[in-house]
Protein backbone atom coordinates (compact mmCIF):
# COMPACT_ATOMS: atom_id res chain seq x y z
CA UNK A 1 0.00 0.00 0.00
CA UNK A 2 1.39 3.44 -0.84
CA UNK A 3 0.53 6.89 0.42
CA UNK A 4 1.30 9.97 -1.69
CA UNK A 5 1.52 13.46 -0.17
CA UNK A 6 1.80 16.83 -1.93
CA UNK A 7 2.98 19.88 -0.02
CA UNK A 8 2.07 23.41 -1.21
CA UNK A 9 4.23 26.27 0.03
CA UNK A 10 6.33 29.20 -1.10
CA UNK A 11 10.10 29.27 -1.45
CA UNK A 12 11.80 29.81 1.90
CA UNK A 13 8.94 28.42 4.03
CA UNK A 14 10.76 25.13 4.73
CA UNK A 15 8.40 22.72 2.93
CA UNK A 16 11.21 20.66 1.43
CA UNK A 17 12.96 20.37 4.78
CA UNK A 18 9.95 19.04 6.66
CA UNK A 19 9.01 16.72 3.78
CA UNK A 20 12.48 15.20 4.12
CA UNK A 21 12.17 14.88 7.89
CA UNK A 22 8.79 13.20 7.48
CA UNK A 23 10.40 10.70 5.08
CA UNK A 24 13.26 10.08 7.50
CA UNK A 25 10.81 9.39 10.31
CA UNK A 26 8.78 6.98 8.14
CA UNK A 27 12.02 5.21 7.17
CA UNK A 28 12.76 4.80 10.91
CA UNK A 29 9.37 3.11 11.22
CA UNK A 30 10.51 0.50 8.73
CA UNK A 31 8.67 1.92 5.75
CA UNK A 32 9.92 2.72 2.25
CA UNK A 33 9.98 6.43 1.41
CA UNK A 34 10.58 9.12 -1.17
CA UNK A 35 10.84 12.89 -0.73
CA UNK A 36 11.35 15.25 -3.68
CA UNK A 37 10.58 18.87 -4.59
CA UNK A 38 9.09 20.01 -7.87
CA UNK A 39 12.31 21.01 -9.59
CA UNK A 40 12.49 24.55 -10.92
CA UNK A 41 14.16 27.81 -10.06
CA UNK A 42 13.09 28.15 -6.42
CA UNK A 43 12.76 31.73 -5.33
CA UNK A 44 11.70 32.89 -1.86
CA UNK A 45 8.05 33.76 -2.09
CA UNK A 46 7.36 31.86 -5.32
CA UNK A 47 4.91 28.94 -5.15
CA UNK A 48 6.55 25.53 -4.96
CA UNK A 49 5.57 21.91 -4.32
CA UNK A 50 7.22 19.06 -2.45
CA UNK A 51 6.17 15.42 -2.48
CA UNK A 52 6.38 12.34 -0.31
CA UNK A 53 5.70 8.70 -1.02
CA UNK A 54 5.43 6.35 1.94
CA UNK A 55 4.88 2.63 1.41
CA UNK A 56 5.28 -0.72 3.12
CA UNK A 57 6.91 -2.10 -0.07
CA UNK A 58 9.93 -0.79 -1.99
CA UNK A 59 8.87 2.17 -4.15
CA UNK A 60 9.88 1.88 -7.81
CA UNK A 61 7.96 4.89 -9.17
CA UNK A 62 10.02 7.88 -10.28
CA UNK A 63 7.26 9.98 -11.75
CA UNK A 64 5.34 12.92 -10.32
CA UNK A 65 2.47 12.61 -7.87
CA UNK A 66 -0.81 13.27 -9.67
CA UNK A 67 -3.43 11.81 -7.31
CA UNK A 68 -2.15 12.47 -3.80
CA UNK A 69 -3.81 10.91 -0.77
CA UNK A 70 -2.94 13.95 1.36
CA UNK A 71 -2.44 17.59 0.33
CA UNK A 72 -0.73 19.85 2.87
CA UNK A 73 -1.05 23.62 2.32
CA UNK A 74 1.53 25.50 4.39
CA UNK A 75 0.64 28.94 3.05
CA UNK A 76 -3.12 29.68 2.84
CA UNK A 77 -2.57 32.51 0.33
CA UNK A 78 -1.82 29.77 -2.19
CA UNK A 79 -5.49 28.82 -2.23
CA UNK A 80 -6.21 31.57 -4.72
CA UNK A 81 -2.89 31.28 -6.54
CA UNK A 82 -3.28 27.67 -7.69
CA UNK A 83 -5.75 24.71 -7.60
CA UNK A 84 -4.33 23.08 -4.44
CA UNK A 85 -6.87 20.24 -4.43
CA UNK A 86 -6.17 19.25 -8.06
CA UNK A 87 -5.99 15.45 -8.30
CA UNK A 88 -6.55 14.92 -4.55
CA UNK A 89 -8.31 11.55 -4.12
CA UNK A 90 -11.95 12.01 -3.07
CA UNK A 91 -11.24 9.78 -0.06
CA UNK A 92 -8.06 11.80 0.59
CA UNK A 93 -7.31 14.53 3.14
CA UNK A 94 -6.80 18.28 2.58
CA UNK A 95 -4.72 19.67 5.45
CA UNK A 96 -4.49 23.49 5.47
CA UNK A 97 -2.59 25.84 7.72
CA UNK A 98 -5.30 28.43 8.41
CA UNK A 99 -7.31 29.95 11.20
CA UNK A 100 -10.42 29.77 8.99
CA UNK A 101 -12.86 26.91 9.35
CA UNK A 102 -12.44 23.64 7.45
CA UNK A 103 -15.80 24.29 5.69
CA UNK A 104 -14.39 27.55 4.33
CA UNK A 105 -11.40 25.67 2.93
CA UNK A 106 -13.68 23.06 1.32
CA UNK A 107 -15.75 25.81 -0.27
CA UNK A 108 -12.72 27.69 -1.57
CA UNK A 109 -11.08 24.59 -3.05
CA UNK A 110 -14.22 22.75 -4.10
CA UNK A 111 -12.80 19.62 -2.44
CA UNK A 112 -15.66 17.52 -1.06
CA UNK A 113 -13.47 15.06 0.87
CA UNK A 114 -12.11 15.44 4.36
CA UNK A 115 -10.56 18.83 5.26
CA UNK A 116 -8.48 19.57 8.32
CA UNK A 117 -7.83 23.24 9.18
CA UNK A 118 -4.98 23.77 11.64
CA UNK A 119 -3.86 27.30 12.76
CA UNK A 120 -0.21 26.24 12.49
CA UNK A 121 0.97 29.86 12.35
CA UNK A 122 -0.40 30.45 15.84
CA UNK A 123 1.24 27.23 17.05
CA UNK A 124 4.52 28.47 15.57
CA UNK A 125 4.13 31.84 17.30
CA UNK A 126 3.30 30.05 20.54
CA UNK A 127 6.51 28.04 20.26
CA UNK A 128 8.38 31.24 19.10
CA UNK A 129 9.51 29.91 15.74
CA UNK A 130 9.01 31.62 12.41
CA UNK A 131 7.29 29.22 10.08
CA UNK A 132 4.23 26.96 10.15
CA UNK A 133 6.10 24.05 8.52
CA UNK A 134 7.25 22.44 11.77
CA UNK A 135 3.85 22.39 13.54
CA UNK A 136 2.29 21.00 10.32
CA UNK A 137 4.93 18.26 10.36
CA UNK A 138 3.75 17.48 13.91
CA UNK A 139 0.18 17.18 12.64
CA UNK A 140 1.23 14.76 9.92
CA UNK A 141 3.29 12.63 12.30
CA UNK A 142 0.16 12.26 14.40
CA UNK A 143 -2.04 11.52 11.37
CA UNK A 144 0.36 8.88 10.10
CA UNK A 145 0.57 7.32 13.53
CA UNK A 146 4.29 7.95 13.90
CA UNK A 147 5.56 8.47 17.48
CA UNK A 148 6.31 12.12 18.34
CA UNK A 149 9.69 11.10 19.80
CA UNK A 150 10.74 9.70 16.40
CA UNK A 151 9.95 13.08 14.85
CA UNK A 152 11.81 14.99 17.57
CA UNK A 153 14.82 12.70 17.34
CA UNK A 154 14.98 13.07 13.58
CA UNK A 155 14.65 16.84 13.89
CA UNK A 156 17.51 16.84 16.38
CA UNK A 157 19.87 14.83 14.19
CA UNK A 158 19.24 17.21 11.30
CA UNK A 159 19.35 20.50 13.17
CA UNK A 160 21.43 20.10 16.36
CA UNK A 161 24.53 21.69 14.77
CA UNK A 162 22.62 24.20 12.67
CA UNK A 163 20.35 25.71 15.31
CA UNK A 164 21.19 27.21 18.68
CA UNK A 165 19.89 25.11 21.60
CA UNK A 166 17.12 27.64 22.31
CA UNK A 167 15.87 27.67 18.72
CA UNK A 168 16.14 23.87 18.52
CA UNK A 169 14.08 23.56 21.69
CA UNK A 170 11.45 25.96 20.29
CA UNK A 171 11.17 23.85 17.11
CA UNK A 172 10.74 20.64 19.10
CA UNK A 173 8.03 22.41 21.09
CA UNK A 174 6.32 23.52 17.87
CA UNK A 175 6.45 19.92 16.64
CA UNK A 176 4.77 18.76 19.84
CA UNK A 177 2.07 21.48 19.57
CA UNK A 178 1.28 20.33 16.04
CA UNK A 179 1.22 16.70 17.17
CA UNK A 180 -1.20 17.55 20.00
CA UNK A 181 -3.42 19.65 17.74
CA UNK A 182 -5.03 16.57 16.17
CA UNK A 183 -5.27 14.18 19.11
CA UNK A 184 -8.91 13.21 18.48
CA UNK A 185 -8.48 12.42 14.75
CA UNK A 186 -8.14 8.74 13.97
CA UNK A 187 -5.00 7.86 12.12
CA UNK A 188 -4.31 6.74 8.59
CA UNK A 189 -4.58 3.02 8.27
CA UNK A 190 -1.38 2.27 6.37
CA UNK A 191 -2.57 -1.19 5.40
CA UNK A 192 -5.72 -0.11 3.61
CA UNK A 193 -4.28 3.28 2.63
CA UNK A 194 -7.68 4.76 3.27
CA UNK A 195 -7.86 7.89 5.38
CA UNK A 196 -10.18 6.60 8.05
CA UNK A 197 -12.31 9.53 9.12
Amino acid at each position, binding site marked *: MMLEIRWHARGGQGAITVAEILAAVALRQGLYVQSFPEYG*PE*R*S*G*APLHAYNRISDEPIKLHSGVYEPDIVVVLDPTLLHAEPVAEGLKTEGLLLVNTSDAAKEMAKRTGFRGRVLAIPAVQLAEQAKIRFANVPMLGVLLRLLNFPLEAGQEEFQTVFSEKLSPAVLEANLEALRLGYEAVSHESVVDMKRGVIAS
Partner: protein
Amino acid sequence: MIHLKELARREEKTQKFFGGHGLCAGCGAPIVVRTVLNAIDRPMVVINATGCLEVATTRFPYTAWSVPWIHVAFENAAAVASGIETAYRVLRRKGKISQDMVFVAFAGDGGTYDIGFQALSGALERGHRLIYICYDNEAYMNTGNQRSGATPRGAYTATTPIGSRGSGKPQRRKDLTEIVVAHHIPYAAQASISDWQDMVMKIERAVAADGPSFLNVLSTCTRGWGFPAEKAVKMAHLAVQSCYWPLYEVIDGAWHLSYEPEPRTAEERAKWGRYGLDITEWLKLQGRFAHLFQKKQEEIFVRPEHRELIAEIQREVERDWEKLLAKCGRAIPVLA
Protein backbone atom coordinates in the same frame (compact mmCIF):
# COMPACT_ATOMS: atom_id res chain seq x y z
CA MET B 1 22.65 65.07 -16.91
CA ILE B 2 19.30 63.25 -16.94
CA HIS B 3 16.98 63.77 -14.02
CA LEU B 4 14.93 60.98 -12.47
CA LYS B 5 11.74 62.55 -13.76
CA GLU B 6 13.00 62.30 -17.33
CA LEU B 7 13.84 58.63 -16.81
CA ALA B 8 10.38 58.00 -15.30
CA ARG B 9 8.74 59.74 -18.24
CA ARG B 10 10.64 57.48 -20.59
CA GLU B 11 9.46 54.35 -18.78
CA GLU B 12 5.89 55.64 -18.82
CA LYS B 13 6.12 56.28 -22.56
CA THR B 14 7.81 53.02 -23.56
CA GLN B 15 8.26 50.45 -20.79
CA LYS B 16 10.95 47.94 -21.83
CA PHE B 17 11.06 45.71 -18.73
CA PHE B 18 7.97 44.49 -16.89
CA GLY B 19 7.07 43.10 -13.46
CA GLY B 20 5.84 39.56 -12.86
CA HIS B 21 9.31 38.07 -13.49
CA GLY B 22 10.75 35.51 -11.10
CA LEU B 23 13.72 37.40 -9.62
CA CYS B 24 13.84 37.34 -5.80
CA ALA B 25 12.24 40.15 -3.85
CA GLY B 26 15.00 42.78 -3.44
CA CYS B 27 17.21 41.53 -6.30
CA GLY B 28 19.82 44.02 -7.54
CA ALA B 29 19.91 42.76 -11.16
CA PRO B 30 16.58 44.29 -12.36
CA ILE B 31 17.60 47.62 -10.78
CA VAL B 32 20.65 47.58 -13.09
CA VAL B 33 18.52 46.52 -16.06
CA ARG B 34 15.84 49.17 -15.59
CA THR B 35 18.43 51.92 -15.08
CA VAL B 36 20.26 50.89 -18.26
CA LEU B 37 17.13 50.48 -20.38
CA ASN B 38 15.70 53.81 -19.24
CA ALA B 39 19.01 55.64 -19.61
CA ILE B 40 19.32 54.52 -23.28
CA ASP B 41 16.75 56.38 -25.34
CA ARG B 42 17.48 54.59 -28.59
CA PRO B 43 16.39 51.35 -30.27
CA MET B 44 18.41 48.50 -28.84
CA VAL B 45 18.95 44.75 -28.89
CA VAL B 46 19.64 43.06 -25.54
CA ILE B 47 21.88 40.01 -25.46
CA ASN B 48 21.62 38.13 -22.16
CA ALA B 49 23.91 35.33 -20.90
CA THR B 50 22.46 32.43 -18.94
CA GLY B 51 22.02 33.39 -15.28
CA CYS B 52 19.48 34.66 -12.72
CA LEU B 53 18.36 37.57 -14.89
CA GLU B 54 17.83 35.45 -18.00
CA VAL B 55 16.22 32.43 -16.32
CA ALA B 56 13.82 34.41 -14.16
CA THR B 57 12.61 36.85 -16.84
CA THR B 58 11.94 34.61 -19.84
CA ARG B 59 10.23 31.48 -18.60
CA PHE B 60 8.35 30.35 -21.73
CA PRO B 61 5.73 31.49 -22.78
CA TYR B 62 6.28 34.64 -20.69
CA THR B 63 8.90 37.37 -21.03
CA ALA B 64 9.57 40.46 -18.96
CA TRP B 65 11.32 42.13 -21.91
CA SER B 66 9.65 44.21 -24.60
CA VAL B 67 12.81 45.09 -26.52
CA PRO B 68 14.46 42.67 -28.97
CA TRP B 69 16.15 40.17 -26.64
CA ILE B 70 18.21 37.04 -27.23
CA HIS B 71 19.79 34.41 -25.02
CA VAL B 72 21.95 31.69 -26.54
CA ALA B 73 24.25 30.25 -23.85
CA PHE B 74 26.24 31.00 -20.69
CA GLU B 75 29.65 31.84 -22.12
CA ASN B 76 28.89 33.62 -25.38
CA ALA B 77 26.92 36.82 -24.76
CA ALA B 78 29.78 38.93 -26.13
CA ALA B 79 30.23 36.65 -29.17
CA VAL B 80 26.50 36.66 -29.98
CA ALA B 81 26.49 40.43 -29.57
CA SER B 82 29.48 40.63 -31.95
CA GLY B 83 27.47 38.73 -34.56
CA ILE B 84 24.45 40.99 -34.18
CA GLU B 85 26.52 44.18 -34.23
CA THR B 86 28.35 43.01 -37.36
CA ALA B 87 25.08 42.05 -39.07
CA TYR B 88 23.74 45.49 -38.20
CA ARG B 89 26.74 47.25 -39.77
CA VAL B 90 26.51 45.15 -42.95
CA LEU B 91 22.74 45.44 -43.34
CA ARG B 92 22.98 49.16 -42.73
CA ARG B 93 25.76 49.45 -45.32
CA LYS B 94 23.48 47.57 -47.73
CA GLY B 95 20.59 49.91 -46.96
CA LYS B 96 18.44 47.18 -45.45
CA ILE B 97 18.50 48.76 -41.98
CA SER B 98 18.47 52.49 -41.39
CA GLN B 99 17.72 53.17 -37.72
CA ASP B 100 20.52 53.95 -35.29
CA MET B 101 20.77 51.13 -32.71
CA VAL B 102 22.80 50.04 -29.70
CA PHE B 103 23.66 46.53 -28.60
CA VAL B 104 23.63 45.84 -24.87
CA ALA B 105 24.93 42.58 -23.40
CA PHE B 106 23.89 41.71 -19.84
CA ALA B 107 25.67 38.96 -17.91
CA GLY B 108 26.38 38.10 -14.30
CA ASP B 109 29.84 37.83 -12.79
CA GLY B 110 30.04 34.09 -13.46
CA GLY B 111 29.13 34.69 -17.10
CA THR B 112 31.65 37.54 -17.37
CA TYR B 113 34.67 36.93 -15.05
CA ASP B 114 34.80 33.17 -15.62
CA ILE B 115 33.03 31.22 -18.35
CA GLY B 116 32.31 34.18 -20.66
CA PHE B 117 35.67 35.91 -20.29
CA GLN B 118 37.16 34.59 -23.53
CA ALA B 119 34.24 35.72 -25.69
CA LEU B 120 34.29 39.10 -23.93
CA SER B 121 38.01 39.52 -24.51
CA GLY B 122 37.65 38.61 -28.19
CA ALA B 123 34.76 41.02 -28.73
CA LEU B 124 36.61 43.87 -26.98
CA GLU B 125 39.84 43.24 -28.90
CA ARG B 126 37.93 43.20 -32.21
CA GLY B 127 36.36 46.55 -31.36
CA HIS B 128 32.68 45.70 -31.81
CA ARG B 129 30.54 48.66 -30.81
CA LEU B 130 28.61 46.99 -28.00
CA ILE B 131 27.84 47.94 -24.39
CA TYR B 132 28.65 45.08 -22.04
CA ILE B 133 27.00 45.35 -18.60
CA CYS B 134 28.11 42.93 -15.89
CA TYR B 135 25.63 42.80 -13.00
CA ASP B 136 28.18 41.62 -10.44
CA ASN B 137 26.59 39.83 -7.46
CA GLU B 138 29.86 38.08 -6.68
CA ALA B 139 28.87 34.40 -7.10
CA TYR B 140 26.84 31.94 -9.20
CA MET B 141 23.53 32.84 -7.60
CA ASN B 142 21.09 31.14 -9.96
CA THR B 143 22.52 27.75 -9.01
CA GLY B 144 22.38 28.62 -5.32
CA ASN B 145 25.47 30.75 -4.50
CA GLN B 146 28.61 28.99 -5.64
CA ARG B 147 31.95 30.83 -5.75
CA SER B 148 33.05 32.66 -8.89
CA GLY B 149 36.12 34.65 -9.81
CA ALA B 150 34.27 37.69 -8.44
CA THR B 151 33.61 36.23 -4.98
CA PRO B 152 35.52 38.20 -2.31
CA ARG B 153 38.13 36.56 -0.12
CA GLY B 154 36.73 34.98 3.06
CA ALA B 155 33.16 34.74 1.80
CA TYR B 156 31.07 31.62 2.42
CA THR B 157 29.56 30.10 -0.71
CA ALA B 158 28.14 26.61 -1.23
CA THR B 159 31.46 25.63 -2.84
CA THR B 160 33.65 27.41 -0.29
CA PRO B 161 31.83 26.20 2.83
CA ILE B 162 32.80 26.69 6.46
CA GLY B 163 34.18 23.72 8.37
CA SER B 164 37.16 22.58 10.37
CA ARG B 165 39.23 22.80 7.20
CA GLY B 166 37.27 25.52 5.35
CA SER B 167 36.65 29.19 6.08
CA GLY B 168 35.23 30.70 2.92
CA LYS B 169 36.93 31.59 -0.35
CA PRO B 170 40.70 31.48 0.10
CA GLN B 171 41.63 33.55 -2.97
CA ARG B 172 41.22 37.26 -3.69
CA ARG B 173 38.68 38.25 -6.30
CA LYS B 174 39.81 38.94 -9.87
CA ASP B 175 39.92 42.68 -10.80
CA LEU B 176 38.10 42.22 -14.09
CA THR B 177 37.57 45.90 -14.87
CA GLU B 178 41.33 46.44 -14.91
CA ILE B 179 41.78 43.49 -17.29
CA VAL B 180 39.07 44.90 -19.53
CA VAL B 181 40.86 48.28 -19.62
CA ALA B 182 43.96 46.44 -20.88
CA HIS B 183 42.03 45.78 -24.11
CA HIS B 184 42.46 49.51 -24.99
CA ILE B 185 38.71 50.02 -25.40
CA PRO B 186 37.34 53.57 -25.46
CA TYR B 187 35.22 53.29 -22.26
CA ALA B 188 35.19 51.13 -19.14
CA ALA B 189 33.79 51.94 -15.71
CA GLN B 190 32.69 50.59 -12.35
CA ALA B 191 29.25 51.60 -11.07
CA SER B 192 26.84 50.53 -8.34
CA ILE B 193 23.08 50.25 -7.82
CA SER B 194 23.58 52.60 -4.86
CA ASP B 195 24.59 55.48 -7.12
CA TRP B 196 22.01 55.76 -9.88
CA GLN B 197 23.18 59.18 -11.07
CA ASP B 198 26.75 57.97 -11.49
CA MET B 199 25.50 54.82 -13.26
CA VAL B 200 23.24 56.76 -15.67
CA MET B 201 26.07 59.15 -16.56
CA LYS B 202 28.37 56.17 -17.24
CA ILE B 203 25.75 54.45 -19.41
CA GLU B 204 25.43 57.61 -21.50
CA ARG B 205 29.20 57.71 -21.97
CA ALA B 206 29.20 54.03 -22.86
CA VAL B 207 26.56 54.66 -25.53
CA ALA B 208 28.60 57.54 -26.91
CA ALA B 209 31.85 55.53 -27.02
CA ASP B 210 33.12 54.84 -30.53
CA GLY B 211 33.84 51.16 -29.93
CA PRO B 212 33.31 48.61 -27.16
CA SER B 213 32.27 49.84 -23.70
CA PHE B 214 32.11 47.93 -20.44
CA LEU B 215 30.31 48.62 -17.16
CA ASN B 216 30.96 46.51 -14.10
CA VAL B 217 27.99 47.23 -11.84
CA LEU B 218 27.86 46.03 -8.23
CA SER B 219 24.47 44.33 -7.88
CA THR B 220 23.75 43.02 -4.39
CA CYS B 221 22.08 39.65 -3.72
CA THR B 222 19.89 39.31 -0.63
CA ARG B 223 19.93 35.49 -0.65
CA GLY B 224 23.55 34.91 -1.60
CA TRP B 225 25.11 37.62 0.57
CA GLY B 226 22.64 37.04 3.41
CA PHE B 227 20.99 40.32 4.38
CA PRO B 228 17.34 41.45 4.55
CA ALA B 229 15.90 42.28 1.11
CA GLU B 230 15.17 45.92 1.96
CA LYS B 231 18.91 46.54 2.55
CA ALA B 232 19.81 45.71 -1.08
CA VAL B 233 20.79 49.27 -2.04
CA LYS B 234 22.39 50.05 1.32
CA MET B 235 24.70 47.00 0.99
CA ALA B 236 25.98 48.42 -2.28
CA HIS B 237 26.37 51.86 -0.70
CA LEU B 238 28.53 50.45 2.11
CA ALA B 239 30.69 48.56 -0.38
CA VAL B 240 31.36 51.86 -2.16
CA GLN B 241 31.88 53.80 1.08
CA SER B 242 34.46 51.25 2.29
CA CYS B 243 36.44 51.62 -1.00
CA TYR B 244 35.86 47.90 -1.53
CA TRP B 245 33.94 48.74 -4.71
CA PRO B 246 35.45 51.99 -6.09
CA LEU B 247 33.49 54.05 -8.61
CA TYR B 248 35.66 55.17 -11.49
CA GLU B 249 35.84 55.35 -15.28
CA VAL B 250 38.59 54.86 -17.81
CA ILE B 251 38.12 56.95 -20.96
CA ASP B 252 40.50 56.06 -23.81
CA GLY B 253 42.91 54.66 -21.24
CA ALA B 254 42.76 57.67 -18.89
CA TRP B 255 41.61 56.84 -15.34
CA HIS B 256 39.13 59.14 -13.58
CA LEU B 257 37.89 58.62 -10.04
CA SER B 258 34.12 59.15 -9.90
CA TYR B 259 33.72 59.34 -6.15
CA GLU B 260 36.00 59.73 -3.18
CA PRO B 261 34.11 58.34 -0.17
CA GLU B 262 33.33 60.66 2.72
CA PRO B 263 31.15 59.82 5.71
CA ARG B 264 27.46 60.58 5.11
CA THR B 265 26.25 60.00 8.69
CA ALA B 266 27.63 60.31 12.19
CA GLU B 267 27.56 56.54 12.39
CA GLU B 268 29.74 56.28 9.29
CA ARG B 269 32.06 59.02 10.53
CA ALA B 270 32.54 57.08 13.78
CA LYS B 271 33.71 54.02 11.84
CA TRP B 272 35.79 55.80 9.19
CA GLY B 273 39.21 54.33 8.39
CA ARG B 274 42.07 55.67 6.36
CA TYR B 275 40.26 56.18 3.05
CA GLY B 276 36.75 54.99 3.71
CA LEU B 277 34.41 53.15 6.00
CA ASP B 278 36.09 50.37 7.97
CA ILE B 279 35.56 47.17 5.95
CA THR B 280 34.06 45.32 8.95
CA GLU B 281 31.08 47.74 8.83
CA TRP B 282 30.17 46.18 5.52
CA LEU B 283 31.28 42.57 6.15
CA LYS B 284 29.52 42.15 9.49
CA LEU B 285 26.05 42.80 8.03
CA GLN B 286 26.28 39.85 5.65
CA GLY B 287 25.50 36.18 6.27
CA ARG B 288 28.32 35.12 3.91
CA PHE B 289 30.83 36.60 6.36
CA ALA B 290 28.97 35.61 9.55
CA HIS B 291 31.62 32.95 10.35
CA LEU B 292 34.17 35.76 10.79
CA PHE B 293 32.12 37.45 13.50
CA GLN B 294 30.39 36.73 16.78
CA LYS B 295 27.50 38.54 18.42
CA LYS B 296 27.49 39.69 22.05
CA GLN B 297 24.44 41.65 23.27
CA GLU B 298 23.54 43.20 19.95
CA GLU B 299 27.19 44.11 19.26
CA ILE B 300 29.03 42.24 16.50
CA PHE B 301 32.77 41.55 17.01
CA VAL B 302 35.43 40.00 14.83
CA ARG B 303 36.23 36.50 16.04
CA PRO B 304 39.77 36.51 17.46
CA GLU B 305 40.92 33.72 15.14
CA HIS B 306 39.86 35.79 12.13
CA ARG B 307 41.33 39.16 13.15
CA GLU B 308 44.34 38.59 10.94
CA LEU B 309 42.21 37.76 7.90
CA ILE B 310 39.98 40.81 8.42
CA ALA B 311 43.05 43.03 8.80
CA GLU B 312 44.50 41.54 5.61
CA ILE B 313 41.23 42.19 3.76
CA GLN B 314 41.29 45.81 4.99
CA ARG B 315 44.91 46.20 3.86
CA GLU B 316 44.11 44.77 0.43
CA VAL B 317 41.26 47.28 0.02
CA GLU B 318 43.59 50.14 1.01
CA ARG B 319 46.43 49.00 -1.25
CA ASP B 320 44.03 48.65 -4.21
CA TRP B 321 42.59 52.07 -3.43
CA GLU B 322 46.08 53.62 -3.41
CA LYS B 323 46.89 52.00 -6.76
CA LEU B 324 43.64 53.40 -8.13
CA LEU B 325 44.42 56.89 -6.83
CA ALA B 326 47.82 56.70 -8.49
CA LYS B 327 46.27 55.66 -11.80
CA CYS B 328 43.82 58.53 -11.49
CA GLY B 329 46.80 60.88 -11.04
CA ARG B 330 45.81 61.60 -7.45
CA ALA B 331 48.50 62.03 -4.82
CA ILE B 332 48.24 59.44 -2.09
CA PRO B 333 47.48 61.32 1.16
CA VAL B 334 50.49 61.02 3.42
CA LEU B 335 49.55 59.39 6.68
CA ALA B 336 49.04 62.19 9.25
